[in-house]
């Protein structure tokens, strides 16, 4: 049974990726997870310098989901390379670095530094954080901005370049196309949905940033639809995410068109989820007599929708 998938020049041993912002720098989880057992780890977003992020409270729960506005707290690319990357290398983790920037030059510089570092497998461009004004969303919400940042980074690295797209636009697929035209090797989607929670007793927002990004099972059907739409539009691989909580959810994204999937919020609830996901995918492939998980990608049958009740 072959669980490997290909993202451009990169081969992942399985399609499971820890989502950026939900797994620290990976090393935090080294005691509970064999980091080399994951397809890849997308580490927390990095700017050129350190950032302290927003004050607490930074998260609030919602029905089947959570809102966060962390504010991209991070140690900066230099400290990441010197303090975290050696341990990730030693643990044989496949590392995707989430790159942030307030300017085009910052994206380029951070990407260049990471390309020169040993042990980085790919670059995920964070052009979609909804929680800080200057966090790249100005690139992610404009087709030309997306095109420009991808093509600029493309010129300084031979690593796979994977922009992470926001769902907070009218037509995500057009952004996937802009990324593909600019030379992206893949696209990640979706980042969180901009949302708000108010305490009616105090009439105050429940997180300090007032608004934040919604993640968790609540968003999954919207994310699946967006992956499906992008699959119809681009031919580069899609890293699908949004509310995946078990193996069936992961398979749903792959059938919709994702080559690999990222898991974030569910890892907070169950840090031991990764072996359960791998086992669940293996079990599914066995039951359906499918030799390679990559054979599932984009195989959704849209001709006639079944009417019998199943899994009700």
């Amino acid at each position, binding site marked *: 049974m072959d669980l490997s998938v290909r993202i451009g020049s990169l081969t992942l041993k399985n399609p499971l990726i820890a989502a950026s912002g*939900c797994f*620290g720098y990976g090393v935090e989880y080294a*005691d*509970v997870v064999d980091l080399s057992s994951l397809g890849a780890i997308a580490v927390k977003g990095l700017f050129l310098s350190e950032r302290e992020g927003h004050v607490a409270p930074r998260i609030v729960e919602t*029905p089947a989901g959570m809102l966060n506005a962390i504010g991209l*707290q991070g140690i900066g690319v230099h400290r990441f390379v010197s303090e975290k990357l050696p341990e990730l290398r030693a643990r044989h983790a496949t590392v995707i670095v989430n790159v942030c920037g307030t300017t085009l030059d910052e994206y380029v510089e951070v990407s260049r530094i990471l390309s020169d570092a040993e042990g980085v497998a790919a670059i995920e461009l964070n052009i979609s954080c909804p929680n800080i004004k200057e966090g790249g969303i100005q690139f992610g919400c404009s087709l030309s901005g997306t095109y420009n940042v991808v093509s600029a980074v493309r010129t300084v690295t031979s690593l796979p370049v994977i922009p992470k797209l926001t769902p907070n636009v009218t037509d995500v697929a057009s952004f996937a196309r802009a990324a593909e035209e600019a030379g992206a090797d893949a696209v990640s989607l979706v980042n969180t949905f901009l949302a708000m929670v108010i305490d009616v007793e105090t009439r105050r927002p429940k997180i300090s940033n007032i608004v934040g990004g919604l993640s968790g099972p609540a968003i999954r059907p919207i994310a699946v639809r967006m992956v499906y739409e992008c699959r119809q539009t681009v031919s580069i691989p899609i890293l699908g995410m949004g509310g995946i909580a078990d193996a069936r959810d992961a398979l749903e994204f792959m059938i919709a068109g994702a080559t690999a999937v990222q898991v974030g919020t569910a890892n*907070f609830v169950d*840090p031991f989820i990764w072996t359960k996901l791998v086992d669940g995918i293996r079990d599914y492939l066995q039951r359906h007599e499918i030799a390679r998980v990559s054979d599932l990608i984009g195989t959704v049958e849209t001709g006639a929708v079944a009417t019998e009740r199943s899994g009700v």
Partner: protein
Amino acid sequence: MPVDVAAEIIANRALSADYNVVALAAPAIAAAAAPGQFVMLKANAGFDPLLRRPFSIFEILCDSGRRPSALTILSKRIGPATNLLYDARAGERIACLGPLGRPFTIVDPPVEGWMVAGGVGLAPFVTLAESLRARRVKTTLFYGARRAADLFYLDFFRALGVELVLTTEDGSAGETGRVVSPLDRRLAALDRQAPVMLYACGPEAMLAATARVAARHQRPCQVSVERIMGCGLGGCYSCVVPMRGEDGGRHHVRSCIAGPVLAADRILWE
């Protein structure tokens, strides 16, 4: 190294209309836990509520062979997850991840241990008191609550040889007012040469007041902070506390892995 167990509820004892003590069969976690550490609990299957909740480890229970067999948590009803814990029944199972976080630093004689608890902030002090008393440290518990009926485990602490200084907001037991007042007076009366370590857990305002009093009397103070926590392992960056770093600058520190026990004089109280 933390483990996750589907821990059976051995007992769930209501202490009042809001407070309860849940005993969980989790021998591996109980055996590894140190005073001040916590567990992340999920009392329900499914997605609502979605996340686990952090709880200080309240007691370590032992079997007849004196081996740790279970832990308890002290819970106060403040929302959906604590309501589920209040209503949980023996025999049900709860996902329990731990032990997590950095524990208290335990002192030795002649240093005295003064614990300052507010409400449900009593939680980490049963195991801390046991550790201090096992080392024959002279131990005092300053314990404040709304009313007399919300003061728990007093006989336990007395039996352990812990001196109790009680306050209630309504005056129904001990001194009327806040727990920091008698702490302040006792520190003022204490011989400057007599070493003491303060340990505090409770509402944020109480912790800040305790930190101010400790600073004024130039006494070291460890506080166990409570924050909204997403994962308990350092992954989500939800539970940060603003602290003064080695460089003098302001830093957001994850209370799940750098704490929950933090040095009071490094926290930037706001």
